[in-house]
């Protein structure tokens, strides 16, 4: 007899049904990750793109270069590999169609945004979508800020960035490029002529260390070098280049130097290999491109000889003091000299907003009130890296949303957008063992990429992106956290069918006589929903109404002989039925196609309905296979009773090796 459990397991509460999946909770802008992965899994890339765009107007960019904090939280991490959440965002942007803008009623207020990096673009997009007349001011000839001039083209090519920018500008944003606020136009003029001004200038100043010999033409700083490279200029570096710094920018600089013709590139950093701030992926990529890392060396001086120079360093014994503050200490007796043709400093960027005429902090950043985000001028806001120092792109996007919501509140007194940003978020816990034991190992699908010996010759994009098929397969690895079953207790007839069909024990009969769902144990297979006699269970992201709409769209102008095929998204090959090609609806699992949906399709013009099932090796929900077979049998019986014997068919693959190349 099945042992039922008391309803106090792993935070089992009603409000748990409003939990976020860990990926979504960790994303600074809380993109509905399970939602867009489900759409990609069904091959609906445009739907996926729209879901991403609700929270992030830069999917093409983030799909390539986001540092994906979401993936660290993925509940699949403990089973095998996290889902390639960021790269699938790229697939959504690659294969989906960007929606047309919905022009809201235009408001009279004008807003100026200074700087067109991720924060500025996001804020401009948000405000334009709320009806404001937004103008972007950008010093450089093209929009994008660091994304265009800082991130090298082999990681983020211009076409990918332009795709997002075109979408953002389609909201109706005026653009003034080549204008530096503080030089070509004064900030107080802007503040006077606009209802609000938002400074999102980012970090434009590149620093070098104040050590002897640094003022040499053989010594460069990171940002001007990266900018020149991204413009396609040839920079004469010589053969041997030493990059100073341990962050991701240092890795970008080193790899860019490699592509600028330097064959011998070294990175010298203060930190040890455990402390280095660059992401492991970046370090790995630099390593395979033949870049040597030298840990724990502190630069002391630069000496020059005919045409070459040398970086003189001493051993750094520790970078941080007991209070975890940056306070390096050195052992002067251990010294090392790195000879180089060119030395490039990539030790951090700083704000360059001195000419704006607003109050600055000691670091040179605009001084703002943390609650109102206002600077010393009343209607001038500042946000993004210029205020916070270097962050991830996705953090900068979050800052853009916040400053837009703040300005919106100040102008309209509507606090709703800001309240939504401040909503508390709870993340779903780990996969319970009972569930983990029943899940199959599915390793992450690796993307096609240029081999390093080819990659270092050009600035061509290294990662080739997923194909549509690979993207769908990868997305299907998702455990669909928090998108599973929800019970409407008023409708529940307590038949306990859900408890009997769930393989993971997600529905629980509590001692108070009710059924509860443990969201942590649900992977949204839909078995309970498909069997519930009272229709008291719904799956998030799936509804009978939506399925009816999809059927209706497919059967629009159906011909005399129209076959409608429901294909399981895990089907490696859509079966060839002969005759006119069928109209196909791809579904996460055939269990989501109810008997009623099939009958409705036949009623609405389909001559025949076919279920195309998956094979066992690709099946996401093995326990659902028997239920699908039962359902098919039931449909056949029902139809034969009303004299429609050939109106339904269930095609199941027998061969199991169809998908071998992805396993």
């Amino acid at each position, binding site marked *: 007899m099945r042992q039922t459990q008391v309803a106090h397991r792993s935070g089992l509460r009603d409000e748990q049904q409003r939990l976020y999946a860990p990926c979504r909770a960790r994303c600074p802008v809380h993109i509905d990750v399970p939602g867009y992965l489900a759409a990609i899994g069904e091959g609906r890339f445009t739907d996926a793109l729209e879901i991403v765009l609700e929270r992030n107007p830069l999917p093409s960019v983030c799909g390539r270069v986001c540092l994906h904090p979401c993936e660290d939280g993925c509940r699949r991490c403990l089973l095998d590999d996290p889902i390639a959440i960021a790269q699938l965002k790229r697939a959504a942007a690659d294969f989906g169609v960007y929606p047309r803008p919905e022009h809201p009623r235009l408001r009279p207020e004008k807003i100026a945004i200074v700087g067109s990096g991720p924060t500025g673009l996001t804020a401009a997009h948000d405000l334009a979508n709320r009806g404001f007349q937004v103008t972007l001011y950008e010093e450089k000839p093209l929009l994008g800020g660091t994304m265009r001039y800082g991130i090298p083209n082999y990681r983020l090519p211009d076409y990918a960035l332009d795709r997002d920018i075109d979408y953002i500008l389609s909201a109706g944003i005026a653009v003034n490029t080549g204008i530096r606020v503080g030089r070509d136009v004064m900030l107080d003029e802007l503040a006077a002529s606009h209802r609000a001004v938002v400074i999102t200038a980012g970090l434009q100043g590149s620093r070098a260390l104040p050590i002897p010999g640094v003022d040499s033409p053989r010594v460069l700083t990171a940002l001007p070098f990266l900018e020149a490279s991204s413009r396609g200029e040839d920079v004469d570096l010589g053969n041997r280049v030493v990059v100073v710094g341990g962050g991701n920018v240092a890795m970008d600089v080193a790899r860019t130097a490699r592509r600028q013709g330097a064959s011998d590139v070294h990175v010298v950093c203060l930190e040890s290999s455990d402390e280095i701030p660059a992401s492991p992926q970046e370090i790995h990529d630099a390593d395979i491109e033949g870049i040597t890392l030298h840990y724990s060396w502190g630069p002391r001086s630069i000496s020059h000889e005919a045409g070459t120079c040398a970086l003189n360093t001493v051993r750094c014994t520790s970078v941080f003091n007991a209070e975890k503050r940056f306070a390096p200490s050195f052992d002067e007796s251990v010294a090392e000299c790195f000879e180089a043709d060119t030395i490039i400093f990539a030790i951090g960027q700083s704000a360059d907003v001195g000419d704006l005429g607003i109050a600055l902090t000691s670091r040179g950043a605009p001084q703002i009130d943390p609650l109102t985000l206002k600077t010393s001028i009343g209607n001038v806001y500042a946000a993004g890296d210029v205020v916070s120092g270097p962050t991830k792109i996705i953090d900068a996007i979050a800052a853009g949303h916040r400053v837009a919501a703040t300005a919106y509140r100040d102008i309209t007194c509507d606090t709703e957008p800001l309240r939504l940003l401040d909503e508390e978020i709870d993340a779903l816990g780990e996969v319970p063992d009972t569930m983990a034991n029943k899940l199959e190992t599915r390793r992450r699908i690796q993307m096609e990429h240029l081999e390093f010996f080819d990659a270092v010759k050009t600035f061509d994009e290294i990662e080739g992106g997923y194909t549509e098929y690979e993207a769908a397969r990868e997305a299907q690895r998702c455990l669909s956290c928090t998108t599973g079953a929800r019970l409407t207790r008023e409708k529940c007839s307590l038949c306990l069918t859900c408890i009997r069909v769930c393989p993971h024990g997600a529905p629980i009969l509590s001692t108070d006589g009710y059924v509860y769902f443990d969201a942590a144990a649900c992977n949204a297979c839909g078995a309970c929903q498909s*069997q519930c006699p009272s229709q008291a269970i719904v799956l998030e992201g799936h509804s009978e109404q939506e399925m009816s709409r999809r059927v209706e769209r497919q059967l629009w102008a159906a011909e005399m002989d129209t076959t409608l095929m429901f294909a399981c998204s895990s089907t490696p090959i859509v079966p060839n039925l002969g005759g006119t090609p069928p109209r196909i609806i791809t579904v996460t699992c055939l269990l989501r196609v*109810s008997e*009623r949906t099939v009958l409705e399709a036949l009623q609405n013009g389909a001559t025949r309905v076919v279920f195309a099932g998956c094979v066992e090796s690709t099946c996401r929900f093995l326990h659902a296979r028997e239920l699908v077979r039962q359902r098919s049998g039931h449909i056949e019986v029902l139809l034969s009773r*009303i004299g429609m014997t050939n109106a339904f068919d269930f095609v199941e693959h027998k061969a199991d090796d169809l998908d071998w190349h992805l396993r």
Partner: protein
Amino acid sequence: MIVVRQKPVDEICAFVTRHRRVLLVGCNTCAAVALAGGEKEVDLMAELLRLATSRKASFVEFSGTVLTRQCEPEFLEQLDSEGYDAILSMACGAGVALLASSVDVPVYPALDTLFIGAAQGLASWEAECSACGQCVLGRTAGICPITRCAKGILNGPCGGVSDGRCELGDRDCAWVLIFQRLEKFGRSKEFLEIAEPQDHSLRTRLVTWDAHEDGIR
């Protein structure tokens, strides 16, 4: 609970095709739990009947609704059957009967009422009780011979048992099961006691029961 099963749809079709607007009424208690008369089945039946009737070029309109229990007048008061010229009840016989007595249009059953039974697992039930009105389970170790024995005899087994199976071949002999369970609890002596015949009038004549008349409440 009362275990029910859907009638073949051609039988139901024969009822409803002579009408114009038919209301399907589900029952969210036993019939839903028996996976035969809940909201899902009501929706499915309506769709099936639409398909069946439209293929025969007859135009019948079907709508569906679900009551918590069809065997209670108060729940039936919630039913709005205005404008329908027939009702298809997806409840047990009791629900159909009470519904039929409370409306002025024909009420047809969509289900067959099978037995009083217990769930064995997913979509599977076993008959446990025949509502004889004189429960004998106390002396038969909780196994009902009237329901489980093909002959319904009170003193068994008969001569048709072999290797513990009934001669019908579809079931274990109820009396062998009773003996085994009595023996397990050291009560095998009770097996030899002869049971008096039941009062079958309780089955045929007991058409109403009022707790107040009996003085129980």
